[in-house]
């Protein structure tokens, strides 16, 4: 076990180091592709903790990405601090907002939580669009020049952190508590789990990651406006990637992120007109063939055919319920 853990850490460090070292050698186009992919993977990992492990399907974690982006832009345009310190502050503010917001929103269950989070994101988007200090609908333009490579490195670091945090959740007592409350909150409570505390902590992790990524995005675009900071596209992308790869699994966001961004990129290059239609069609097919995602489907195949029936959940449960 400890040998496996050591090998895992070594492999993880090697992958991150390789990505960091290759950055300067990438052309503008490939650096952009690599940045977008890492951003999507980081957002997917952030989303996966509250939505996958804890089962609170959020349509509004982009709220914290927006808070991170605006905070960074404001600090960068009014002070001479290093933008990475500003981005850290953005992450900190996202967590500070998420603590009370989570305590309130997590009282909602199921679709009401999902819609509540969507409402929170839209509310902040409107606030940003109508406030003076955020530049209103025009947003804030940044004059400070930050190279795309620096943003790529920052995003790589945050995505690596998000992955490491997920490993910690996946392997820990905390993760088991989250999975238990995802399945049945009341039963988890009667078995001694402090449900509210666990949910809020998961929510904070799922706010910190997008909060830290938002600052990099602002610097990358040299602009923050409401549609980019509270980007519906980025939110949906993170959700789709995670669901495709395997929601609530360690590898799901990574597999989904790499595969989906490649498919998306290739389709866009070859069929610019029909790209969204083909992409949507593929997604429907995948959801029908592997409803729990690619990673659980592969895992259950490796464990042997007996478990594959159970991967779809409902039929086995129905059969088991017969006395």
């Amino acid at each position, binding site marked *: 076990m400890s040998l496996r853990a050591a090998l895992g850490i070594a492999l993880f460090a090697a992958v991150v180091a390789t990505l960091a070292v290759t950055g300067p050698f990438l052309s503008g186009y490939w650096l952009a592709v690599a940045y977008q992919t890492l951003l999507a993977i980081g957002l997917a990992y952030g989303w996966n903790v509250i939505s996958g492990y804890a089962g609170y399907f959020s349509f509004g974690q982009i709220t914290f990405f927006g808070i991170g982006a605006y905070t960074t832009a404001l600090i960068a345009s009014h002070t001479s601090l290093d933008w990475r310190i500003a981005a850290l502050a953005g992450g900190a503010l996202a967590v500070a907002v998420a603590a009370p917001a989570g305590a309130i929103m997590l009282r909602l269950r199921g679709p009401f939580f999902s819609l509540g989070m969507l409402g929170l994101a839209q509310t902040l988007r409107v606030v940003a669009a109508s406030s003076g200090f955020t530049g209103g609908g025009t947003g804030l333009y940044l004059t400070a020049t930050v190279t795309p490579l620096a943003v790529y490195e920052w995003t790589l670091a945050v995505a690596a952190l998000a992955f490491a945090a997920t490993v910690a959740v996946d*392997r*820990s*007592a905390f*993760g*088991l*508590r989250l*999975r*238990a409350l995802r*399945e*049945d909150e*009341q*039963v*988890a*409570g*009667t*078995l*001694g*789990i*402090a*449900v509210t505390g666990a949910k809020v902590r998961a929510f904070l992790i799922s706010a910190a990651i997008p909060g830290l990524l938002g600052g990099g995005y602002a610097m990358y675009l040299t602009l923050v406006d409401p549609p980019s900071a509270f980007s519906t596209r980025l939110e949906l992308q993170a959700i789709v990637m995670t669901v495709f790869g395997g929601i609530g699994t360690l590898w799901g966001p990574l597999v989904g992120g790499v595969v989906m961004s490649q498919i998306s990129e290739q389709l866009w290059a070859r069929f610019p007109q029909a790209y969204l239609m083909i992409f949507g069609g593929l997604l429907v097919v995948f959801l029908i063939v592997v409803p729990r995602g690619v990673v659980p489907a592969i895992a259950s195949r490796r464990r042997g055919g007996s*478990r594959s029936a*159970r991967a779809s*959940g409902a039929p*086995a*449960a129905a059969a*088991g*319920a*017969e*006395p």
Partner: protein
Amino acid sequence: MSALLEVRGVSVAFGGVHALRDVSLDVRAGEVLSIVGPNGAGKTTLFNVVSGVRRPHAGSARFDGRELVGMPLHRVARLGIARTYQVVRPFHRLSVVDNVAVAALERERTRTAARRFAREVVASVGLERFADMEASALTLTQRKRLELARALALRPRLILLDEVMAGLTPTEMDEMAEFVLGLRSRGIAAVAGIEHVMRLVMRVSDRIVVLDAGAKIAEGSPAEVMDDPRVIEAYLGAPLSAV
């Protein structure tokens, strides 16, 4: 000797229906108390009040001197009160071991230690062959055992068993009776909700409380309760002599 659990004057109403009316009872450390009554008598509601799931409109429930009414679920559990649900509620997508490990987390702290302990508990209820399967693969009888294993993994001083006999075959009922008696020999108090299996009620119970339409109509040793004319009437209808 003061009781482990003291329920005093508990009333619960759903709309105009009184699910419990002014119910008081004691559970002593290590005893088996059976709560007997027909469907709808208020057994599950009583379990919900004691385990913290439902707040009563009046009355109190004290465990070891601590008031349970208004206490969050997990704190009730950590005091040492475990419960099973009438309709079994496994964590479907967790393995059998992890279902049980969840209940062991508060004492064991790490997941590895909780799983190790959970394996012992899973084996003690005869589910070791299924330990690494998803709980959704279990049959109803196995799921009932899983509920018991989760309750045991809390290392409780009191277990509330809601409708323990429901849905079991006669052989399984006998096994369940042995299990309940086993709890007593380990010093764990049990409150067993049982609808109508009087043979087993007589065998496992130290004392019996009879509920009818939300009110306590009798309490005492099995022999006393079975001779009580009100119990006979509530349970079996009017006495034979009146027919």
